[in-house]
């Protein structure tokens, strides 16, 4: 693997007023973002937010309707092949070549980049090892578990030793253990200096992996920053999740009125954001409202999303 660090501050990806429409439907309604070399940059948002369309514009599977997009300093309208030579792509949908064995998937993919055979052979072995697939090298794609298929997709995206790796929902559909392994490998890639661009609708994934991220909804970027900044900027640090019988709910709402903000999710749960959860909880207890369940936790990106959109990320 390439151990060279590429931590220069020049932006490696830049979008301005980037748009994509399909007839009357605007999938991406004009977004601006900059990604710097060596960072992990995330697009967090629900399904249908325009994340995948944005990724596809980056790797050339969708041509923007308007706006500017430069990848690795190259304009996407005119340098399709050169951009694709320099990036790696992990698509949302598994499109491994089922007619080829695990190892062959990497060998044949390497040929598409016109890489010398020796280089492809060497990288294939390294990547199988890196993605913990060496034992499955001669297996068919069908014999792999979901997590292994995803790891093979990631290995395949690295065959050309790309500067930028675009990952569209790299862990969707994986069980927690498989997800942890993928996270671990992706973090390893950033330490090697690769730039990662990923989409996710798991806030835990965004919080753990991303140096910076944007939150997308309805084809627009509605917030951006580091995970910490986003939480700090948009919500109070402490959250009380209070569940009450729906008859007591009105009463509960009046008790927590003094909090920084209050969100209702579903019929019976109220999320209360505050700087001082102890005092608030004291107030609730002393008011005598019948609370069925209380959860106290630190605010996270999920709360930022709820605050900004009025709804949960995964519904």
């Amino acid at each position, binding site marked *: 693997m390439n151990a060279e660090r590429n931590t220069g501050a020049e932006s490696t990806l830049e979008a301005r007023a980037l748009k994509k429409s399909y007839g009357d439907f605007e999938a991406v309604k004009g977004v601006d973002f900059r990604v710097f070399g060596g960072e992990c940059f995330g697009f967090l948002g629900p399904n249908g937010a325009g994340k995948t369309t944005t990724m596809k514009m980056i790797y*050339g599977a969708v*041509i923007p309707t308007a706006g500017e997009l430069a990848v690795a300093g190259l304009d996407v*309208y005119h340098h*399709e092949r050169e951009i694709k030579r320099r990036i790696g792509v992990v698509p949302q949908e598994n499109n491994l070549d089922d007619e080829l064995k695990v190892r062959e998937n990497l060998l044949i993919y390497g040929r598409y980049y016109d890489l010398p055979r020796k280089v492809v052979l060497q990288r294939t072995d390294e990547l199988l090892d890196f993605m913990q697939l060496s034992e499955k090298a001669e297996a068919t794609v069908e014999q792999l578990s979901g997590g292994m298929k995803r790891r093979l997709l990631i290995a395949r995206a690295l065959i050309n030793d790309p500067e930028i790796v675009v990952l569209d929902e790299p862990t969707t559909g994986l069980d927690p253990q498989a997800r942890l392994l993928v996270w671990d490998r992706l973090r390893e890639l950033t330490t090697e200096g690769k730039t990662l661009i990923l989409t996710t609708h798991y806030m835990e994934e965004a919080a753990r992996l991303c140096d910076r991220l944007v939150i997308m909804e309805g084809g627009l970027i509605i917030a951006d920053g580091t995970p910490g900044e986003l939480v700090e900027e948009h919500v109070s640090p402490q959250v009380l999740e209070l569940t009450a019988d729906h008859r007591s709910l009105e009463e509960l709402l009046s008790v927590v009125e003094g909090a920084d903000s209050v969100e209702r999710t579903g019929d019976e749960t109220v999320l209360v954001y505050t700087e001082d959860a102890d005092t608030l909880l004291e107030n609730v207890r002393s008011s005598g409202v019948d609370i069925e369940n209380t959860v106290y936790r630190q605010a996270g990106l999920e709360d930022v999303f709820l605050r900004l959109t009025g709804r949960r990320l995964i519904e």
Partner: protein
Amino acid sequence: MDTIRIPSARGSFRVWQRNVTIFRKYWKTILFPNFVEPLLYLAALGLGLGAFIQQGGINGQSYVQFVAPGLLASNAMFAASFESTFNTFVKLKIDKIYDAIITTPVNAEDVVAGEYLWAGTRSALYGTAFLAMIVVLGIVFREPLVTSWWALLLPLMLLVIGIMFSVLGTLFTSLIERIDLYAYYFTLVVTPLFLLSGVFFPVDNFPAPVPQVAWFTPLYHAVNVCRELATGPSPGVLVDVAWILVFTGVLALIPVQIMRRRLIG
């Protein structure tokens, strides 16, 4: 971005190479039916139907001699047609093989051209197996079915014929969303061509407009070329070759553009 896209040789070669890699794993199984097919046809048509065709045959040839090179041409048509319809559809819509390829420096237009080349290669391989069997049968039954050294050009010609039918099949594939619709292509295009292009009987002596209509269809010319090369060509064969090249050249870039639009949003 609606400029006309011209495939690159290198990208097309990579796509062709992927198919070769897979074919090499299974070639024995894949090619075997092509050795059996001529046996079946020639037994049924030569011995069965041919027995009813009066002595003297067609244009001085026995019925078996007449029909064998025609079947060679139609074999190439079927090979390329299956490749560019069902096989291409599966790669396009079910296995999403092309979606994976076009994230590499290989572009959508290269994918289509690579598939043309591969379908042509497949036709040439199938046809060569078929041809070898015809030669052997001719020797075994002491009725030479291939009588000219020009026949050595047949594999190359079958490659070209395969590419022509691949362009046609890919054009249909580029326009449909559902795999069931191939029934229309095979029933309304491939089968009529098979039956009415001079494989089984000469169409040239039919009253107008049959020969004129036949002249505008691709298999008619493919059959002529194969028959002439099998038995020694006349200069007229150049017209058939030219027809095939022009038809293929004119149509080839159309499926490329449509498929590109399907693969790239």
